[in-house]
């Protein structure tokens, strides 16, 4: 099953490679990983999307907690949560495709953030499935380039991950 693990980790050189090293050494999967410093610059927040049986997820959580730089780990799946991913997608936009692309971007609430005579670059955020759906909705040959960040997640309501 797919899980989203949210991690608070010391913002120190090498911390990220400890996390990725752990996943590869123990044969766990990383579907995506995002990381950036929080409002407290000494701390980073990491969102790891992974999949595996409950036993594996339990081990991953324990192993992450064991890393000296990891302050806290929660499995967002354990309660309601929100996740968002950002995609930048460059598409061909010539002739009658140009109108069509703009319309599609509007339908998906994307924004066109860069324009040339031949291309649009569209910014789209949402849960991963929405981004997938957008890609599917386009003519594959019109897609020139896609960049996705992987999911960031946060608990719903009063649920807070902080030290």
């Amino acid at each position, binding site marked *: 099953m797919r899980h989203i693990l949210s991690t608070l*980790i*010391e913002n120190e*050189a*090498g911390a990220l*490679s*400890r996390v990725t*090293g752990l996943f590869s*050494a123990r044969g766990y999967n990383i579907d995506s990983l995002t990381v950036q410093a929080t409002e407290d610059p000494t701390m980073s927040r990491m969102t790891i999307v992974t999949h595996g049986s409950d*036993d594996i997820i*339990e*081990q991953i959580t*324990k*192993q992450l*907690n*064991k890393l*000296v*730089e*990891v*302050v806290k780990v929660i499995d967002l799946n354990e309660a309601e949560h929100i996740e968002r991913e950002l995609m930048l997608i460059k598409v061909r936009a010539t002739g009658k495709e140009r109108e069509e692309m703009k319309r599609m971007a509007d339908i998906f609430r994307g924004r066109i953030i860069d324009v040339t005579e031949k291309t649009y670059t569209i910014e789209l955020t949402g849960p991963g499935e929405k981004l997938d759906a957008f890609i599917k909705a386009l003519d594959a040959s019109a897609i020139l380039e896609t960049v996705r960040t992987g999911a960031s997640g946060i608990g719903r309501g009063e649920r807070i991950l902080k*030290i």
Partner: protein
Amino acid sequence: MFNYETGIEPMEISGAEIVVRCLAEEGVEFVFGYPGGAVLEIYDAIFKQNAFKHVLVRHEQAAAHAADAYSRSSKKVGVCLITSGPGATNALTGIATAYMDSIPMVVISGQVGTAGIGLDAFQEVDMVGCSRPIVKHNFLVKDVRDLAVTIKKAFHIASTGRPGPVVIDIPKDVTINKAEFSYPASIAIRSYNPPTKGHPGQIKKAAQLIGEAKRPLIYVGGGAVQGNASEEVTELVKLLNVPCTNTLMGLGALDGTDSHFLGMPGMHGTFEANLAMQYCDVLVAIGARFDDRVISVPNHFLSQPKRIIHIDVDPSSIAKRVKVDVPIVGDVKHVLTDMIAVLKETGIRPHAEGLTDWWKQVEAWRAPKCLDYAQSEEKIKPQYVMQKLWEVTNGEAIVTSDVGQHQMWTAQYYKFRRPRQWINSGGLGTMGFGLPAAIGAQLANPDAQVACITGDGSIQMNIQELSTAKQYHTPVKIILLNNRYLGMVRQWQEFFYGNRYSETYLEALPNFEKLAEAYGHIAIRVEKPQDVEAALREAFITHKERCVLLNFITDEGENVFPMVQNGKGLNQMDLPPHMSGMQQSPNENNRDYGNLC
């Protein structure tokens, strides 16, 4: 900064001096190391101090093993110092060895100057990257002002929680640059808070489960040794009058001569320990991790229903290979103390009748004496050497070993009486560990008898340390069980590869006696069983103050029994000849097997 109160201009000292001062503050007695370009400043600072002694090994792997064994035999943190590049990579095997057995160690490695890092400088290797998967934690110190705090953190992390090695990589310019020195008295790391006390609710649950047990077993691992919980283990065993098995890493946690002790479990465990592991109904695992060499295949192990209490300081050890009923995360010493208190308060004990039957069963499994072997008039049996060694040393020696058959025979036949008496590479299984380990253990225990049990293969993996033993006058006794084979591998080839002894016969062995003598030691060659005891006495008594190599020419065909083959269950052992075909299950007249859960 000028101090207006004292009027003293505080002195700035070099990074190298800071390193030395920190080690002194930590009360370090010995640093095991080997010099080189990147650590020249540190070696110069060492030259000028006398707070600790430096032990010059002959290979960096040995520095790590010696520091590791120093720690295992003394409860203190082992320290080793190596140069960048090849010095650092040479030490990796030793670091991994310590990591697998959870040994507290601080490794200081030199690094090229910060300006050179990443430019493929001479003797540059990414030590933080190379060591990452085999350390508890590591640091690269880029600013001399961070040095003292980092060293403090390293000692703290290495020695608390589940212990382990910590590497501090120090670029050369950081050892030259200057800073004010102050060593923090204590340190708090917000992201690192190892557990101590166990959850009282869980401890109560465990006591209740013990109260329901008819066939209880206590299974003790290296965590009880590293956690200094031998007294508590012994008290628990005696309070409950329950049989107990110690793993390869746990040997000595309960006195090997105690009547509750069943021997070691696992691949080369005893008949009684393995069957008790398989057929117990409540298993109390203490600082043990259900590893593959102990329980073999989890499904087979669990095919006989049992309920499990698992005490460990590392939550990730719990439910890793085997699901447990009552997990207790905490320092084993604390948890056992609390558990014993609850048991005493409530008077909870295992089911009396059940326990009586269970002991009868255990005694029945003990009766055929699975460690008996056919003594020979002509050839020296390695088991016999171990038995005689025990007698000659009164079971009191600190014993290190290498890896192979000799290691298993030591574990089986030398009845370790106390924790930290048995020093071997259990997790990584590192050949070459024994001799440098013996040197480290001897330095930590100058008055103890120290024996290194080794094989003709293993001893050659760090034989150069005979030179270190000479320089530091460590009177270790090297018990070489010389079977002219890589015996353990040969045994597998005999059992599983149709006697095709591929590359396991050691032709062109050196003349070990001459070799030992060349290094300035005493050597004794022993070819006959009747000379074994006298030779041991000569080594341990006549040459008490000297390093002696005893070259025992042993029976080359001897195998280690019992044996649980890979993929088999604990009740599917290959048994020694005198027990072949013996039933590996409980007696029929015993009640209740499989009724629980």
